[in-house]
């Protein structure tokens, strides 16, 4: 699973690379679906919201692709983009990791937050990018989540956070773990005001992000096949030394076990979010 999610960095075009030229249409690329092995062209994949037309395998999406999928055209106004991580513990190698992630993704951190409209309804939208250090949650991700929550509360509009994360950012030690408590505390205040929070769990949502803000929504949606859980499957395998169930920790497994409201495939995601926003109009929600 994890491998599938992160093995596709080819898809994210680094300027000058073959993939970049493909994505620019200068090469006609053929991508082999990691699930059904069907060959799909970049263009076909893009037009199908990065979902395999054959087997519905959901390719990893970047934070900006996710925004493009959900937000109305041109409506997204990013905020707090200037927040950047610092190596607060002088952790060996963290600076280099950050620099690498920034140059690879063009992002300052693993989470983009902003205001937009979705089907005309105003909302605060946050999307995570697993290319950025597995979208682990450090001080910046925690802070941006809190500010997004607070912005939605100020404006009394719904909050939508699209999670994707391997967990806490270990390089920030306990300051990273505490972001779980910080974001959960901010959400408590948000819920107190009777506002709507929709969480979308994408591949993968595990560890500290799963065990904090991603699970504390009114409505929890998940993408088909997404890995969702507290502990990583490798850790579990080590602990119990048993073969894990076939669909273990997949979105479908989590649905069956009562942890998510709905599995929503990408082509209908925006429509579903719109309908949910419409049904939550009035009251305290815009």
């Amino acid at each position, binding site marked *: 699973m994890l491998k599938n999610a992160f093995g596709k960095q080819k898809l994210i075009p680094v300027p000058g690379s073959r993939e970049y030229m493909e994505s620019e249409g200068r090469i006609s690329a053929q991508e082999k679906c990691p699930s059904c092995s069907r060959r799909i062209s970049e263009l076909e994949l893009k037009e199908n919201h990065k979902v395999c037309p054959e087997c519905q395998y959901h390719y990893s999406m970047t934070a900006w692709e996710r925004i493009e999928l959900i937000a109305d055209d041109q409506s997204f106004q990013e905020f707090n983009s200037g*927040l950047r991580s610092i190596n607060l513990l002088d952790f060996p190698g963290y600076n280099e990791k950050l620099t690498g992630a920034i140059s690879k993704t063009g992002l300052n951190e693993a989470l983009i937050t902003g205001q937009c409209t979705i089907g005309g309804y105003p909302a605060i939208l946050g999307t995570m990018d697993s290319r950025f250090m597995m979208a682990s949650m450090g001080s910046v991700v925690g802070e941006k989540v809190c500010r997004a929550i607070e912005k939605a509360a100020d404006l009394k509009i719904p909050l939508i956070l699209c999670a994707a994360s391997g967990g806490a950012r270990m390089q920030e030690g306990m300051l990273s773990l*505490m972001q779980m408590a910080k974001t959960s505390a901010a959400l*408590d205040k948000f819920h107190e005001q009777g506002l709507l929070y929709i969480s979308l769990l994408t591949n993968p949502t595990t560890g500290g992000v799963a065990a*904090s803000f991603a*699970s504390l929504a009114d409505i929890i949606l998940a993408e088909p096949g997404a890995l*969702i859980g507290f502990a990583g499957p490798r850790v*579990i395998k080590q602990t119990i030394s048993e073969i894990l169930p076939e669909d273990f920790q997949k979105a479908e497994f989590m649905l069956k076990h009562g942890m998510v409201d709905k599995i929503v495939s990408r082509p209908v995601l925006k429509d579903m979010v719109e309908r949910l926003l419409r049904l939550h109009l009035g009251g305290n929600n815009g």
Partner: protein
Amino acid sequence: MVKRHFDYEEKYRNLQGKFEELQELSRSLQFDLTDEFKLLEEKMKDIRVNKYQNLTAWEKILLSRHSERPTVRDYIEFIFDDWIEMHGDRCYGDDRAMIGGIASIKGIPVTVLGHQKGRGTNENLHTNFGMPHPEGYRKVERLILQAEKFNRPVMTLVDTPGAYPGVGAEERGQAGAIARVLMTLSSLKVPIIAVVTGEGGSGGALALAVSDRLLMLSNSVFSVASAEACASIIWKDAGRAEEMASALRLTAQDIKDLGIADEIVEEPTGGAHKDFENTAQNLQDRLDRNLQELLAIERHELLQQRYTRLRHIGRFQEN
């Protein structure tokens, strides 16, 4: 090869043995070395004390996991009067890795919660090595909401390698169960005091550490994940756990320096198990004092302070 066991005491006992043999021998040869031996003995003791004042992060990890270290139940039974344990999440089961109930401290009723490790293999199978399942966190949520209903302060004792990573735990929503406790504690309308007594491991420990005051025993640790796991994930080398332990800043002093812990409760030389009564007594005094302080704060102000404290954790730059 990473040292897995805190063996300083063994080594020290060996040294003492040799010293006693030396004394014995000198007596039998009728050498009068009393003064010299006295000096030597004091020097040895000093070195030991000094050692314990300068343990490395890894040594503290090992000490926090020491098999003789007092368990949460030991502390509860010493510190609190009239302890009545409560069971169950009203939903699936009763988690023996997480204990909770009501008790009183200096006459004030409180709700007490904590991770329960066992001593020895049998006990540890019973308590799952102090690693809770979701039902443990749901028991916590039930009991803290009850504490709020009855306006009872909450005290938690943290000592766990982490929440249990297993199939059943995932099936029953470990992530969501922990998240709910974090959220509920953050706004619980009664004072909360948390103490890390041993191992503070990851989110499973954090779920009991959201509080108005966080105390740590001087040899306890609190870490985003185990040093072994971090070394294996970041450096792809579990063998570098000792080095990772230092990098993670997980000792009580580190956590206090990071502004997360408020107070350190000193343990006796050799660790809490070397003088349990004294350690527990110290802890009781600290809990009592902190409780008095928190009860004196107007409730709305207390909640405001707790929120502010949580809201400002983290460091970053903003352009």
